[in-house]
Structure formats: C-alpha cells, structure tokens
C-alpha cells in the first residue's frame, strides 16, 4: 500500500498521512465511542448537577448551586472525604508495596515460575462484587474462617459494629483484587531491566538488597508512577462494588467512600441532581490528583 502514496513511514517512527481525510476516518469509530460513552454522560452529569428533578423526570427545575450547597451543609458528606482519603492511601500504598514485594520474588524464581505467576494473576479475573462477597464470608463474625482464627488469637472480630474492622475488610478485599494487576506490571518491569546491569553490580559486590534499591527500583519508577495513578483512580471509583457487597458504608458512615454515596444517591435513592453534583466533585478531585501526580511526582521518574 506504500505505493499508493497514502502514508509515509519515516525513520522517526512517526506516521505522516498525505491524505487530508483518511486520518479522520480512521479515528472516527474510536472518537464516536469516546463521545457517546464518555463525553455525553459526563456532560449530562454536569447539567443534572445544576438541576433538581423528581424521580420520573416529569418535573425538572434549574436550581443553580443548591445541590452543591446542600452537600456542603451535610456533615456526613464532608466526613466521607476523610474516609475516602484514608481508604485510597491504604489501598494504593498497600497494593503497590505488596505487589512490588511479590514481583521481586517471583522474578528471582527459576523453577516453576509459571505456577506462582498464574496464581498471583488469578484474582484479577474476579469481579469486584464477587471479591467483596468472598471476603465477607471469610470474615463473617458467625461463620467465617478468618474471624474464627482471629478469635483464637483473641481478637473479637465484628465488622458490623467496629469501624476499624470494617475499614480493614474493604481495604483487604480491594487490595487483593488489585495486586494481580500491579504484579503483572511490576514483573514486566523487573524483566525489562537488562540483566547485564544486575550482573555488573553483583560482580562489584553489591548485595541483593543494595542491587534492588540502587538499580532495580529507580529503573522501575515509570511503572510505579503509572501504577500510582491507576491505583488511585481504582481506589476512588472501582471499589464501590466491594463496599456495596460488604459493609454498605457502615457501621454508621465509617466506610462510606465518596463513590459509594454517588451510587447510593443515584440508584437507590434516585436523587439524580445530588448524585450528579457529587460525581462532578469527584471528577474534579481525581483530575486534580492526576494533574498533581503528573506535575510533581513525574519529575522523580527516570525514563
């Protein structure tokens, strides 16, 4: 097809199109999908956040910033900012450190490596709600294996009434799910480090630990940065299934992360204006977090 003169591949690995309409046609399907499934709902959420409507949409009124104002007045909403912050830091922090730990050791295994890798990747195939139910059973105060063992150790496990236990439950379930994803990336990262660097350091007398800190970890910073962004978004958005299956935001409101309230208000309570206002706020939070990460944390990344 090069003979048609439609596109030229030059040495810079950049594709230059001679035709003026072909690029647009090629992007059109993807652009259409992004428009319909991302921009349109986002725009609708923005519009709905300034409106007040009854459940069936027969009585829709503009009410300016009232939805946002009533959120500001709600103590429990403000408290859920703190809950979400704690939850996200725990999930992202534990998720990244644990999977880094596992990937490091999986990288060093020579015999039967595929067994460990398969087992570690398996949880990723489990849907968040299923993961939540799984851990709910394991930690059920009446019939759970884990709570039985905890009782033997002297801990009266009760996620229904103890906020710390409830938070631990959702953090464990969320991290368990995400470890596989992080593990995969870290493993690939470890394996893309040239063996010659490691061997050179070994010859120079560096211990395993020193090799990790001075060579492998710095070279992993692109992966770590990427996973930090992805894990933060995951902790903010994709964990509501786990919260809904396990604690439903309880006890009280101590595990009600922001996205859970968006889901509950929108789909259970059918307060579309309030829910849209909350998702707009959530969107801005995550956008700013991502911008901050790109602006400040990326400086530390060695490409």
């Amino acid at each position, binding site marked *: 097809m090069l003979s048609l003169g439609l596109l030229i591949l030059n040495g810079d690995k950049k594709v230059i199109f001679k035709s003026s309409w072909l690029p647009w046609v090629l992007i059109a399907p993807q652009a259409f999908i992004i428009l319909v499934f991302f921009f349109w709902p986002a725009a609708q959420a923005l519009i709905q956040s300034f409106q*007040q*409507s*009854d*459940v*069936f*949409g*027969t*009585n829709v*009124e503009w009410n300016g910033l009232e939805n946002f104002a*009533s959120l500001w007045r*709600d103590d*429990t909403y403000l408290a859920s900012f703190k809950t979400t912050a704690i939850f996200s830091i725990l999930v992202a922090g534990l998720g990244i450190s644990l999977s880094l730990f596992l990937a490091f050791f999986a990288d060093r295994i020579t015999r039967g490596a595929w067994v460990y890798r398969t087992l570690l990747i398996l949880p990723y195939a489990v849907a968040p709600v299923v993961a939540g139910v799984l851990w709910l059973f394991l930690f059920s105060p*009446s019939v759970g294996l884990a709570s039985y063992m905890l009782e033997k150790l002297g801990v009266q496990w009760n996620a*229904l*009434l*103890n906020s710390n236990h409830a938070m631990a439950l959702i953090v464990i379930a969320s991290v368990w799910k995400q470890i596989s994803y992080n593990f995969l990336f870290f493993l690939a990262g470890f394996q893309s480090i040239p063996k010659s660097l490691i061997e050179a350091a070994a010859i120079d007398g560096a211990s395993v630990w020193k090799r990790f800190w001075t060579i492998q970890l710095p070279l992993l910073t692109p992966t770590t940065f990427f996973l930090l962004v992805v894990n933060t978004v995951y902790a903010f958005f994709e964990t509501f299934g786990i919260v809904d299956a396990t604690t*439903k*935001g*309880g*006890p*009280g*409101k101590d595990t009600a992360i922001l996205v859970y309230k968006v889901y*509950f*208000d929108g*789909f*259970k*309570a*059918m*307060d579309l204006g309030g829910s849209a206002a909350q998702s707009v706020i959530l969107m801005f939070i995550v956008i700013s977090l991502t911008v901050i990460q790109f602006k400040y944390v990326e400086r530390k990344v060695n490409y």
Partner: protein
Amino acid sequence: MNYKKTLATVAVAAFASFSAQAQTEIQWWHSMSGALGEWVGDIAKDFNGKQKDYKIVPIFKGNYDESMTAAVAAFRAGNAPHILQVFEVGTATMMASKGVVVPVEQIMKDAGYKFDPKSYVPAVSGYYTAPNGQMMSFPFNSSTTVMWVNLDALRAAGISTDKLPQTWPEVTLAAAKLKASGHKCPVTTAWQGWTQLESFSTWHNTELATKGNGMRGMDARLVVNSPLHVRHIENLGNMAQQGLFVYKGRAGSAGANFESGECAISFNSSAAYAGVSKNAKFKFAVGTLPYYPDVAGAPQNTIIGGASLWTMAGKKAEEYKGVAAFFNYLSDPVVQSVNHKRTGYLPVTMAAFKMTEDSGFYKQNPGTDVSVNQMIRKTTDKSRGIRLGNYVQIRTIEDEELEQVWAGKKSAKDALDSIVKRGNELLEKFEKANKS
C-alpha cells in the same frame, strides 16, 4: 386464474387465524425471586389459562431497588411496563409523581368492574390510598412485622413456652435468662428501621412523623425522637451493651442468623415463614410484636411491608382493560386465600381472611394468623400507614444512626435527634422537588 383464488383464500385464512390469536400482552415487572418467583409465574399461568383476551407476561427485573430504577429509566425512554411492583417505601415517590401512574380505582371503574375499597383490610388498603380517598395501587404482597421465637432454645434456658413473651419487659427477662444459660445471641432484629421504629410506632399508636406519618401531606416531618422512642432505643442499647441484643446487620440479614438457630428471638417480616419453615431445624413459633404495657393505646396495629402493583400511564385503553381484568382476578377471595396460604403474605381482603379461617388453615399451621390478627384491627390516624418521601435514604440514615447506638458510640437521644435532623432535610428536598 384458479391459483389466484387459492392464493387469496390462503391469505385470508392466514390473516384470520393471526388476528384470532392476537392477545393483548400486559407487561408485569416484579421483584420476586426463588420460590416467590415461581409463585408469580404460577399466578400468570393461572390467569392466562382462565381467559384468552389478555396475556400477563411477568418479568423479573431484580430486587425492589433495581426494578424501580429500571422502570424509571424505561419511563423516561417511553418504554414503561403496564404493571410495576413497587415496595412500600417507594409509595410516596409513586404517589407524588405526576402523569406517571393511573390509580387502580380508576382502572377498575373504567373497565366496569365493581370496586369496593371497604372490602380490603384497612391497614393494607389505607397505606396505598391517596388523601382524597382514591386507592392508588393494588396491594399484592403485604407482610407485617412479627416476632420469631426459637422454642427449643427458650426451653433449654428454662423459659416456659406456653405463652410467648408479649411485652418488652418480658422479652428482656427472657433474654437475660437465655444469656445466663450461655446463649450467645438471645435477641436480634432484621430491618431495624421497619421493626423497631416504624412498626413500633404504629403498634403503640404513636406518630413517627407528623401529619399522620405523612399520609396527610408532604410537609410532614419526623418526630421519631419522642420520649417513647428514646426510651425504647435506650433499652435496646442497654441490652446490646449487656450482650442480650446482638446486632446482625442491615436489611434482612439477621433472618439467616435466626434460621440457623444462632439467635433465639428475632424480629422480622411475616413473609420469612417460607424460609423458616423450610430451613429451621428447631421448633419455632410466631408471636406478635412486643409492646410497652404502660403506653396508652398499645397494642394498636403493625405496619405493612412488602409491595403493591402500580399501573403506569401512557398505555392504550384496551391494555388497561386487561390490567383491570388481572386485578379483578387477584381480588377473588379464592385466589387470595391460595396465595396467602402458599407464601405467608397477608390476605388483603376480609373475605379471603374469613375463607382461610373457615378452612381450618390457621388451626393446622399455628402462628400463620398472627400477622393477620395484628392487622385486622381498625386503624387510627396515627397508625394507618407511613408515606414519607426519599424514604429509602431515610431508612439508611436510621440504619447508620442505630448502628452507632449498638456500638455504644452515641446515646439513643443523640442518634434519634440526628435521624430527625438528617431525615427532615431529605423530606424538605422531596417536598420542594414535588410541589405542583
């Protein structure tokens, strides 16, 4: 030329048979799964078999929340079903909506059926009747709050089971005896908002919210922090601290703890009968909800749970005739009696109750008439029903605040005050969003 005649005859015959089989299809979205889902299927089969003009098509759309959300989306897209099963907490939303539903009384009258609101059990029909006296939806599966007792556990603790505990002091005493004998979970409750606040209020002829619990207007506000309510929640809170009352989670999750034999006394829906009779490996009994004997007017009547059938607007007249025919079928005392005996849901007409009683069913299955007895009484303005907007959210607020009391983090008064404050904000929002 002959083939043209044959062709014409065949064509006419084909069309004729086609139109003769054309039935009006009525879409019915419901939330009954498992054994109850089979029950719905059997109802549809029975109705469809009895006549040929209309065909009821029941479609399971998920639990009550999910099917209501689906129906809202469908309505906004112009695709609503004919009949929608809506749970009792959605009643205010449905009633406040404009141009979305057609009152059942109107459907029946337009189709020429005799419709007598007085033939329905007052505590049931009153819940679904508008302030102007018009019955809005058809009561389909109504349950009420009852007390489930594990007789084996009580006997093992040395408690006499000739007469079940009737009052709250008696229940507390039984719980203490159970605990003393080493029982790990003397008392628990499911649906705490419904059993310990709403039904508790109507059972004691006390208002949960002003304006007859919202039946008389959208400007109703919560008053669930009255001295009686504070006293009751304080009692339960103390019981929780002493290990007499063990919290087992929101919604109906405590039902499983009772069925497994873990908890000895539980407060739950009368419709738990299906599960308990099937799964319990112990002798059980159903008792009335306990009351405080020193409160004037107690016991009055309990509040219903469950759902009713709403007819959505925007359909053709012929289809509404089919809906009316289906509701007429459901009102038949024989059909009602059969449904009541099978599921444990209340019979919604007095005639059906009498028929079931005369058949000796209650004698053969002790405890199945408890729920009905609690409801047959006449209602008062304070006990007729509850109709509050945004009630799904308010129930969640009740769950959240009560959990703080059971965990010992808040006093009963603070928790109930908080429920009133947060709940009233939601009621104001509802009133504003729905004023004409």
